[in-house]
C-alpha cells in the first residue's frame, strides 16, 4: 500500500510522526455514517509533532 503524505504540524511546520491507529466509537449521527464496519467504529490515525508536541488526527484509509 502506498504511504500517505506526512502531516505537517499546524503549529510549527515540522513533519509529524504517525504513531498510532485507533478505533473511535461514534457518538453523533454524522459520525455513525462513517463507521468502518470491519472495526466497529471510525478508524483514525494519530500523529505527534517531535518538535513541539502538538497532536493531530485524520481518518485512516
Amino acid at each position, binding site marked *: 500500500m502506498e504511504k500517505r503524505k506526512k502531516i505537517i504540524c499546524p503549529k510549527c511546520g515540522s513533519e509529524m510522526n504517525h*504513531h498510532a491507529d485507533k478505533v473511535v466509537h461514534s457518538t453523533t449521527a454524522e459520525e455513525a455514517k462513517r463507521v468502518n464496519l470491519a472495526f466497529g467504529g471510525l478508524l483514525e490515525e*494519530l500523529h505527534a*509533532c517531535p518538535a513541539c*508536541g502538538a497532536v493531530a488526527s485524520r481518518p485512516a484509509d
Partner: protein
Amino acid sequence: MINTRPLSIPVILGTTRKGRLSVHAARFMVDQISRREGVMTELIDISDLPIPLDDAGEGIKDAAFSEKMVRADALVLVTPEYNHSFPGLMKHVLDSCLKEYIHKAAGIVGVSAGPFGGIRAIQDFLPVIRELGLVNIFWDVNFGNIAQVFDGSGRLLDQAFVARADKFINELVWMARTLRYGRDNIALDS
C-alpha cells in the same frame, strides 16, 4: 530526535463535591512532582472547568483543557471512591478529549474515607483509561483514611506517603519519557 522540552505532568482533581478531602492529596502530588527537575506540573481542578450537561464526549470539549492535555506527557488522576467507582463528572470531563491522550502515561491516586484507599475506584477506572489511549503505570498511591493522613489545613501527617509518591512519580516519569520518545520517533509502520 530526543526532545528536550520539560515533561508536563498535570494533576487532575476529579471531584467537585463540597468538603472533598481529595484536594489535599492532589495538592500533595503537585508539590511532590514540582520538586522534580525537568518536570512541569499544575493542578487541574475539574470544579474550575465548564462542564455542560446538555451534551457529552467531544461535543463539550473545552479549548483550554484540551490544550493542557496536548501539552501533557502524563496525567495524574486523583479520584475519590464513590459507590465503588470514580466520579461520573471526572469521566464526563475526560471523555471530552481523545487524540490528546494517545500514547501518554497515566497514574491513579485513589482517595477514600475508609481504609482501602480508593482501590475499587481504581480498578473500575483502568478499562476507561485504556480506551482513552492512555498507558497506565503499575504504581498507584492509595490515600485510605484520608482524614487521618492530612490535617484540616492539608498538612501531611503520615510521612510514609512521601516515599510512596516518590516511587509512583519515578515510574510515571520513566513511562512519560519513554512514550514521548515513541510518539516522536517510532512510526507505526516502521
